[in-house]
């Protein structure tokens, strides 16, 4: 019961404390939740369905570019553009997933294909003048307009990402307990046995892909509105793909809280590294690489898995 109280306290803090936080910690908190959110989105396909995508940037970029282009060219509010981006990304995910799964791509081959698709989108974006090519797109944020997902201060953005993250957490929790959730983990554990038990493996994987893509795309829109600038490398590049999956792996893929825990551990560490090695570009990613190697080697089930094993041993 002490656990529930602790969790309640944490939630209360996340909701009530930020208005009193100074700028820098608030930015870090937004960063933490942003990566937690991306990790949760990735986790549905990677952790639960067991299909490790290295190309989630494809969906992130589709989200970011869709809402931004609809905003810049058609004046559509990014709140709506976000949903459009999500649907488009889900569609692309279904396309990519259908091609891959229909032709039996599993494991590393699937990972490579997702990487290839993300890179293809990046190359296309770099070469298309209508989407800004490599110069990218700037989102006008000089005038605050909440209806257009533009805020004057950081705090509203915090609550947006908090809501998104909470939503993703809830969705994951509910999913894990439904027929689809069981189907996904069955496919992950043993696809042939799952089929023999009546699970439509292709359908389950595609559902996971579409859902994961949709959520990731929403994150892309958030990024665009928060940072007010996007380009092909940021949105479609391998960087965002990797940073999206790291929290899930470190925290525990296939668990509800894993990505959240992973983000809470990774982000401050990377911020600290960046601050210590002031101005040294790449120091934080170098650390990510090291952390990834260490986690895979010593905590292959992630932090949550490790905590669970410890608890089981203790009593």
């Amino acid at each position, binding site marked *: 019961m002490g656990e529930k109280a602790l969790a309640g306290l944490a939630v209360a803090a996340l909701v009530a404390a930020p208005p009193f936080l100074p700028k820098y910690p608030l930015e870090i908190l937004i960063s933490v939740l942003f990566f937690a959110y991306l990790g949760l989105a990735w986790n549905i396909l990677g952790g639960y369905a*067991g299909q*490790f995508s*290295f190309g989630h940037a494809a969906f992130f970029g589709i989200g970011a570019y869709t809402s931004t282009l609809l905003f810049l060219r058609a004046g559509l509010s990014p709140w709506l553009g976000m949903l459009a981006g999500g649907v488009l990304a889900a569609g692309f995910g279904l396309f990519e997933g259908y*091609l*891959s799964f229909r*032709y039996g*791509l599993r*494991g*590393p*081959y699937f*990972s*490579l*294909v997702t*990487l*290839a*698709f993300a*890179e*293809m989108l990046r*190359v*296309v974006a*770099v*070469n298309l003048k209508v989407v800004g090519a490599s110069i990218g797109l700037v989102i006008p944020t000089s005038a605050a307009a909440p209806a257009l997902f533009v805020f004057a201060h950081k705090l509203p953005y915090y609550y947006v990402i908090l809501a998104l993250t909470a939503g993703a957490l809830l969705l994951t929790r509910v999913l894990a307990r439904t027929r689809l959730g069981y189907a996904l983990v069955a496919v992950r554990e043993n696809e042939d046995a799952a089929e023999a038990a009546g699970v439509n493996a292709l359908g389950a994987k595609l559902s996971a892909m579409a859902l994961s893509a949709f959520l990731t795309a929403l994150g892309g829109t958030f990024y665009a509105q928060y940072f007010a600038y996007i380009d092909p490398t940021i949105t479609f590049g*391998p960087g965002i793909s*990797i940073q999206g999956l790291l929290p899930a*792996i470190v925290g525990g893929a296939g668990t509800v809280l894993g990505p959240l825990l992973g983000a809470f551990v990774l982000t401050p560490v990377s911020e600290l590294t960046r601050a210590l*090695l002031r101005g*040294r*570009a*790449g*120091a934080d*990613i*170098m650390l*990510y*690489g*090291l*952390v*990834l*190697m260490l986690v*895979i*080697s010593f905590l*292959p089930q992630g932090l949550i898995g490790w905590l669970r094993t410890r608890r089981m041993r203790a009593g």
Partner: protein
Amino acid sequence: MNGGLLLQALVSGLLLGGVYGLVASGLTLIFGVLRIINFAHGAVMMLGMYASYWLWVGIGLDPYASVLLTAPAFFVLGVAIERLVIEPNRDAAEHNQLLLTLGLALFLENLALVLWQGDFRTLRVPYANASFVIGEALVEVSRLVAAGGAVAIAFALYGMLRYTDLGKAIRALSEEREGAMLVGIDVRRIRGVAFGIGSACVAAAGALITPFFYIAPDVGESFNIMAFVVVVLGGMGNFLGALVGGLIVGLAESLGAAFLPGSLKQLVVFVIFVLVLLFRPEGLFGRPRG
């Protein structure tokens, strides 16, 4: 269609393709023996390029000559990486092994970034601009030497695999692991050696291209992707496939550059990649599945 343009594309494609072939040979060797897709391959190549660069800047060692130093050094580095990072995780889930080499790649690339910053460097040898003409195509000597050197090393590797005891042990482990273990082949040693050889190859490839290719921490990334495409195209673990695949990919990229605007040439390679993965995942030279 401009004949001269086409010829130029063919020449450039074949020359760079030879280098891709060497890079991919190393990767396919590693896959054949260790059964992992080494995401850190490009990063090791990048480090090989920096090694040649610093040797040139420091003691004026010609990059081609530096191969004699860097290849053995990177062999040792490769063995060390295999022992320290990969071997302990030998029985881990496949996707975790992938993530492991990915983590290594991130670490090495950004280590380079932290140490040497992201500025492009170039290694200017006196003969850098030497070139001659075949028909309407310009052939840069440095590219020719790189391709020739790459192919030579690849053939030496092939000879080693075919005719030496070590080579036979490696092939035995690639093709029939349980049988190999039964006849007493020291699996652990061979795994380390294979990774070492793969690393040495890719470092050598890096050294060979420094006279005409920019040097930066992220240079390995594009070669990484190319190497994956080549290895899949040629057949995972298939050495000859890696060489032929390298030439095909080099040509495809180069023809793509001739006919497509901007950097869309990369699309050609990715499309080939996806098509091969979907329709012939065992590669041109591999045996069809099931």
